[in-house]
């Protein structure tokens, strides 16, 4: 079977700075892949390359074996790539339910004219969409908050809602940018179980940027380590954890420490 997402030798340059260079990475179906590295290593840039905010200056992004370099961001969502953001980007003043329904945009079968004239089809479709949104909300036990504004939810719940919003697009591949940022160990553990559950229940694939090593190592099938825009190691969590290069990247070389 072909991989779901394949980055082939992609690079991107901003002026003189090579933010990502010759990165190759594959994500198989129903796989959780962790992307780690120090601050400024280019992890979020990789997300922006996959979602089309940036286009690679060299190499190609392949989704379901199709080169999607030329696709716009929203077209990539239609194909099946959805993401969350490092700093939560919910539609703050829309309700929880509206946030979910918004994500179903592409898959909704209702035109502007039947909406304007409130044809029977409009009401039928509205019921269906509401029902589906409720199912998603039930999945994260948020049904009682469906009419609450998203900005009024506690931080952790906002993170969950953002993940479910990405799922509601119908995407096969979820890109999660530091989902555990700002969470306490207890919440992080819950989130870890949640991501694993999503993969198993809904057959999603996940690419995960995360600084919390417990989380990354705990659920990833594969971990890639990025430093200065280059992939330095890729492998199973247990292999990566004990890799000398990775330890050097995070903690520095022993000799250097001695000199300073």
């Amino acid at each position, binding site marked *: 079977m072909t991989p779901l997402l394949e980055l082939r030798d992609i690079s991107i340059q901003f002026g003189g700075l090579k933010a990502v260079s010759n990165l190759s990475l594959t994500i198989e179906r129903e796989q959780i892949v962790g992307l780690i590295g120090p601050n400024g290593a280019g992890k979020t840039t990789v997300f922006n390359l996959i*979602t089309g*905010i940036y286009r690679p200056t060299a190499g190609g992004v392949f989704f379901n074996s199709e080169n999607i370099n030329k696709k*716009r*961001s*929203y077209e990539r*969502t*239609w194909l099946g790539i*959805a*993401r969350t*953001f490092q700093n939560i*980007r*919910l*539609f*703050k*003043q*829309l309700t929880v339910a*509206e946030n979910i*329904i*918004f*994500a179903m*945009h*592409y898959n*909704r079968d*209702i035109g*502007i004219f039947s*909406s*304007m*004239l*409130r044809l029977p089809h*409009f009401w039928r479709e509205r019921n269906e969409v509401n029902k589906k949104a409720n199912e998603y909300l039930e999945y994260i036990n948020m049904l009682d908050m469906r009419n609450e504004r998203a900005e009024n939810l506690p931080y952790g719940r906002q993170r969950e809602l953002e993940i479910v*919003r990405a799922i509601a*697009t119908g995407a096969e591949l979820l890109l999660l940018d530091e989902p555990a940022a700002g969470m306490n160990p207890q919440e992080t553990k819950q989130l870890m179980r949640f991501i694993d559950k999503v993969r198993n229940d809904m057959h999603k694939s996940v690419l995960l940027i995360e600084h919390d090593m417990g989380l990354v190592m705990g659920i990833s099938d594969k971990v890639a380590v990025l430093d200065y825009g280059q992939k330095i190691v890729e492998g199973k969590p247990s292999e990566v954890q004990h890799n000398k290069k990775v330890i050097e990247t995070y903690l520095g070389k022993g000799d250097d420490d001695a000199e300073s």
Partner: protein
Amino acid sequence: MDAIFNSYTLQIITMCCINIIIVQGLNLISGITGQLSLGHAAFMSIGAYTVTLLMLDLNVPFWLALPLAGLIAGLAGFMLGVPILRLRGDYLAISTLGFGEIVRVLFLNSTTTHGALGISSIPHYTTPLISVILAIVGFIVMFNLTNCRFGLALRGIREDEIAAEMMGVNIAKYKMLAFAIGTGFAGIGGALYACQITFISPGDFAFTRSFEQLSMLVLGGTGSLLGVAAGVIILTVIPEVLRFATEYRMVMYGLALLIIMVFRPQGLFGNIRVNL
């Protein structure tokens, strides 16, 4: 009854309805979609001149000229949208302001529109009844448009453009549609205005009018359909009520605006923050 509905009050009611139609259009662009426009009066003038020239020069009947005025103003809005809707916030505002001035100067220098002399003796077709009916129809259309998949997409764009695009919405297309529909409303309103006042000149559609429309929107509550009606009515009626104050009229008008904004920054009926 006659004491209330005399020709003076009927004229105020008609102007309120016309302004409600126009400001509903501005609300779709700025309040619902969050794209600040400072050139709304330009589209009103396009509608006014379209209806006038169609009726006077080409003998098109009013009931055909009216929708055409909306259509042409909407088309102008759509075409303007192509180059400038990539801009955001203040940059967008300045370009819409510039566009408004371009339109005004074009009408000022064209011989077809009689330049600064304006066009007089436009047939008086806008009755209070027509304006009330069209304002109600406009309100219903706006309500339905903002409460469906289309309206949700626009509101999401207002909240967060990047997130909206990442959720699969072609934001350029939706912004352009909002612009086209909103400016179409301005065109219809402008046409009704021309057929009410029976005289138009480019000076009637200067940027001060765009600002007046924006004040009505912000005062009533940006993003709120009821707020639009409230803002329009208050800012149309206050100057009339204040006529007794003669030269202090505009001072009191300004003061009223100031006080409402200090105590209700989100507008009288507004319940959302719109960062224009």
